[in-house]
């Protein structure tokens, strides 16, 4: 090979030049081929798509979240346009003043500037800095005057923004550093990764939701400002605020029908804060690891590295429901973003308007809810007294008189399963959320009070005697007893064991109720009668009957924090040591059974509907109510149970008929012209050394209807924790709820 070349080019120098030329040609060929590879086929299409994507300026318009209204169309939550005052980080951090001072100093001494050392420069800058800082101070003073927010508060807000950005910066630096270490094991340092973050180039809200007049005044300052004025860096940001118009309202309470010691002819004004908040919920900003981002992301990365947008999708910082209805109905309330696309190539502008979220109509009547919240207020300063420990609550009240009591109430429309009101005590307000710190929410006191818990659906309690109508109806249906058959109550269930399974009357007066049929047993709430039925059933059969009434399972009301209650689990895994002794206890609502107020209301509604199960709901139903399932209940049994419950409230011997006051025995229920059925319950709680957790849970469950309707239309459940006797504690509360329902037009 070498010889022909040598013959052709005898000169070595020429051969070397040829070698260099060939080398050059190879390099040129490689460059050409690589260029051909990049500029043809899929590669160029991909690059063009990337390049052209930048020729489109896409901005997104925020979605408008749907409204939440009550059953009468009153707005409970909605987005409202608002204006915020936002300032550029440069102004907040003091960098604007410094940069302006540097520029001014440079202009003054332009020619000498390069020769000055750092110290001399700083001295010159310092001379100008004061003036620019005064300009910024002037902005703060004007804002303080216009918005009536103190200068100190504004400085606090400024510091808070700066601190937040600094924290973010250090977090991002650390993350970048860690990422770089993992990705390429590059021997980098944290200082290498230090750099500005996007938030340093953005405006940050310092004052939100300003009034129109203030907005106009600030706008004038901004309009008049030139590029060198600090006002140039102030902006009025169009923002949306979620407002809850009924969150705090005043309610007038008529106390004339209260138990005599609390009654007054003077109405009482009660400020209800946080009305329905535990149910309706609030919104929050999304964080980086939010599940919504994974489930329905705003930016869709396709396989071919393409990017598409789901306008109804989520991205960090979006507003989503935090809990309650806002969270449960997130998909419906969400809506869809709008977008504005400017094609730089053609100058064409296209706009898609945002689609508002849908309106959710709740079954709740916010008027009724407000009245119940007011009735059940337990703040000693303004409470009407029903939720404070009173002398008639028990023979020996478990807590000092005047102690605030906790509890829940729920009102349900039986035919539709719609929940008209659901109150939890204690509750919390938006103000609490904003201003209370974590130590408040975590304090031992709050661990017991649990103000964030929505008790009507989330707190299970032992049912106590309120379960007895359910037991009776089942026993008659299943032939465990006939409607006329009597059981003789001698005090204890077994005379051979006089200290075990005793009737409440035996504990009180060492006597028994004597022979009782079902109706009287309900009226007198005889324990021995229902112990006997429990024993006749046996644990397994009784538990399965309870399950039919929705115990031990979620009702399906939809909210995330619903509790399934507790019912003995007889599956193999959980056999433990259950015996028929537990069935005896379950007959009177003690032992391995607990239900939430909602489950209690649901069970009573099933009883009234004679086995038809309707899923309870917080949403107003449209059209025919769907029947979830149905099972057989003897109509005769229901009749007997309802007759007993009528006697409970109407006959003197009934357990929820009258209060046991020192001076007299006034009737508990005093609303005329209604049909009323009821059952009280005093559920024992485990013995504890904590005095705050001592005392029985007091239940009352009422069924009511206007006089012209024979069948019960509404179920009202009231439970007060660790308070004393069911009828004496919860009875007057249920009575006031009936009055409230009357005022609101239900009875």
């Amino acid at each position, binding site marked *: 090979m070498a010889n022909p070349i040598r013959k052709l080019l005898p000169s*070595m120098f020429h051969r*070397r030049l040829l070698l260099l030329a060939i080398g050059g040609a190879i390099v040129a060929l490689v460059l050409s081929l*690589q260029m051909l590879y990049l*500029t043809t086929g899929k590669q160029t299409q991909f690059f063009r798509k990337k390049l052209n994507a930048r020729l489109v300026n896409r901005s997104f318009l925020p979605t408008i979240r749907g409204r939440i209204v009550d059953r009468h169309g009153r707005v409970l939550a909605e987005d409202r346009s608002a204006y915020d005052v936002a300032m550029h980080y440069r102004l907040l951090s003091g960098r604007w003043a410094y940069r302006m001072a540097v520029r001014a100093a440079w202009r003054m001494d332009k020619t000498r500037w390069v020769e000055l050392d750092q110290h001399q420069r700083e001295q010159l800058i310092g001379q100008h800095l004061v003036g620019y800082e005064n300009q910024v101070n002037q902005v703060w003073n004007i804002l303080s005057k216009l918005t009536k927010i103190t200068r100190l508060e504004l400085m606090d807000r400024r510091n808070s923004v700066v601190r937040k950005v600094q924290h973010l910066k250090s977090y991002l630096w650390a993350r970048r550093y860690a990422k770089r270490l993992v990705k390429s*094991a590059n021997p980098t340092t944290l200082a290498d990764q230090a750099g500005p973050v996007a938030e340093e180039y953005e405006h940050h809200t310092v004052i939100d939701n300003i009034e129109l007049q203030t907005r106009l005044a600030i706008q004038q300052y901004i309009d008049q400002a030139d590029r060198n004025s600090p006002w140039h860096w102030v902006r009025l940001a169009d923002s949306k605020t979620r407002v809850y118009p009924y969150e705090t309202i005043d309610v007038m309470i008529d106390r004339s029908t209260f138990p005599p010691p609390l009654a007054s002819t003077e109405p009482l004004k009660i400020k209800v804060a946080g009305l329905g908040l535990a149910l309706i919920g609030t919104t929050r900003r999304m964080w980086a690891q939010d599940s919504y981002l994974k489930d329905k992301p705003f930016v869709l990365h396709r396989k071919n590295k393409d990017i598409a947008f789901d306008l109804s999708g989520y991205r960090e910082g979006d507003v989503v429901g935090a809990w309650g209805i806002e969270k449960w109905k997130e998909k419906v309330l969400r809506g869809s973003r709008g977008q504005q696309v400017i094609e730089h*190539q053609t100058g064409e502008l296209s706009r898609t308007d945002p689609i508002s979220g849908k309106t959710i109509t709740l079954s709740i009547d916010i008027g009724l809810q407000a009245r119940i919240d007011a009735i059940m207020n337990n703040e000693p300063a303004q409470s009407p007294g029903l939720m404070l420990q009173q002398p008639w609550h028990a023979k020996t009240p478990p807590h000092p008189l005047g102690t605030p009591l906790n509890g829940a109430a729920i009102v349900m429309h039986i035919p539709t399963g719609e929940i008209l009101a659901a109150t939890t005590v204690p509750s919390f307000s938006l103000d609490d959320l904003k201003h209370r710190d974590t130590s408040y929410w975590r304090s031992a006191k709050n661990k017991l009070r649990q103000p964030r818990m929505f008790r009507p659906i989330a707190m299970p309690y032992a049912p106590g005697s309120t379960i007895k109508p359910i037991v009776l109806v089942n026993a008659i249906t299943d032939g465990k007893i006939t409607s006329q058959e009597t059981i003789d109550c001698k005090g204890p269930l077994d005379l051979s064991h006089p200290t075990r399974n005793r009737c409440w009357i035996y504990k009180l007066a060492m006597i028994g109720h004597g022979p009782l049929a079902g109706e009287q047993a309900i009226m007198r709430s005889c324990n021995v009668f229902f112990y006997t039925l429990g024993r006749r059933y046996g644990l397994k059969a009784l538990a399965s009957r309870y399950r039919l009434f929705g115990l031990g399972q979620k009702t399906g009301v939809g909210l995330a924090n619903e509790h399934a209650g507790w019912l003995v689990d007889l599956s193999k895994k959980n056999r433990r040591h259950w015996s028929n002794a537990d069935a005896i206890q379950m007959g009177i609502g003690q032992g391995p059974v607990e239900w939430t107020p909602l489950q209690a209301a649901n069970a009573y509604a099933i009883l009234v509907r004679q086995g038809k199960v309707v899923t309870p709901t917080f949403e107003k139903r449209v059209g025919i109510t769907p029947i979830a399932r149905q099972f057989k209940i003897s109509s005769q049994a229901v009749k007997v149970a309802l007759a007993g419950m009528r006697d409970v409230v109407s006959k003197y011997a009934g357990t929820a008929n009258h209060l046991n006051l020192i001076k007299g025995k006034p009737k508990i229920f005093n609303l005329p012209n209604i049909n009323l059925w009821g059952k009280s319950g005093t559920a024992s709680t485990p013995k504890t050394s904590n005095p705050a957790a001592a005392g029985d849970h007091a239940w009352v469950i009422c069924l009511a209807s206007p006089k012209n309707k024979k069948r019960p239309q509404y179920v009202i459940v009231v439970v007060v924790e660790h308070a004393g006797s069911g009828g004496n504690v919860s009875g007057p509360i249920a009575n006031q709820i009936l009055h409230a329902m009357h005022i609101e037009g239900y009875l």
Partner: protein
Amino acid sequence: MSRTGQAIRTMLTPTAAWGAMFSGLALALIGILTISGSSEPAHAQQQFIWLGLALVATVLVMMIPPKAWGLIAYPLLIGTMLLLALLLLPGVPQAIVPIRNNARCWINLYFMHAQPSELAKIAFILALAWYLRFRKNYRTLSGLLVPFVIMFIPVILILKEPDLGSAMMFVPALFFMLVAAGAKLKHLIILVGLALAAVAFNIVIIYTLPDHLQILKSYQRQRIVDFIDREGDQQQTAMRLLGGGGLQGYGREQSALVLKYNYLPEDHNDMIFALIVNRWGWFGGMTVISLYATFLLSFLVVAARLKDPFSRLATVGFAGLIFCQAAINMAMPLSLLPITGITLPFVSYGGSSLLATFVMVGLVMNFAAHRPQILARPSFEYGHTNKK
């Protein structure tokens, strides 16, 4: 005949160097057109003025006969070294040596910022050619030491500025000259092998050793890592712009629009090749590559026809320097090499670079036109035996 007359006669003598001159001018005009569509369109006018000055400089260098260039080669190199040292002297005020991008590469001449490293390239090639012209000791491995030392002195000074890109360009020039001069290829292959091993070693160091044990600066390491990981913004954007041009390119207006919304740092300078392909497509890019190939070929033909060893080697050195610089620059947006701060000769914006490259063209035209009438002993002919 007066010197001017001599120069005019020299210029008008048709030689292969005219091909290089034509290529250079064509490339410079392409550069000006491209700069006019870049993010700094105002620089196009400035570049046009520089081109005029560069052509004047070309004429000026042609007035001095080649032998005189040889005689002043060493003093010129020493003078350039002094200028490079001046850049690094701690006490020099910024008014004279301004700091740009943390680098001290320029001397403020008030009408322009001159880059001594550009002058150093010329001086180095002339000095090396002068040194190698009658020797043959570089055919031994130890004999290669002196040429490398001559190269390392300016390279180290330029690296201290720091300007890795400019410093790098001395290596291909040296290799071109050594290959042409007849240095043994196996020696050169060993040296290239060692250099590649050093590069590989450095990459291993980058990925394994902590910061304080690193040889390269952090931004240089970052560029290498970005190149390997295909992450660097600048390189990725340049590749997108280049690839997006397709076969025929976007055209002037569309290209300017695309560039406006796809910001590419140094688009009128180091990254100008991406703009050329974006505007004129693969055909435009091929035109540029062809012009560089023509340029290389012209210089090599000039070298082949010359008899004077100094002129021969200097011509090959200039060819190697300019062609390799162009090839490396074009390989960056093509994602074949990591980003280093070097310009595309003739095309990129910059007075010093344009002036230096046209001075090289002028020198080669000068050499080509001054072929000695009497045939000298042929140089760099070592036959096919391995005799030294």
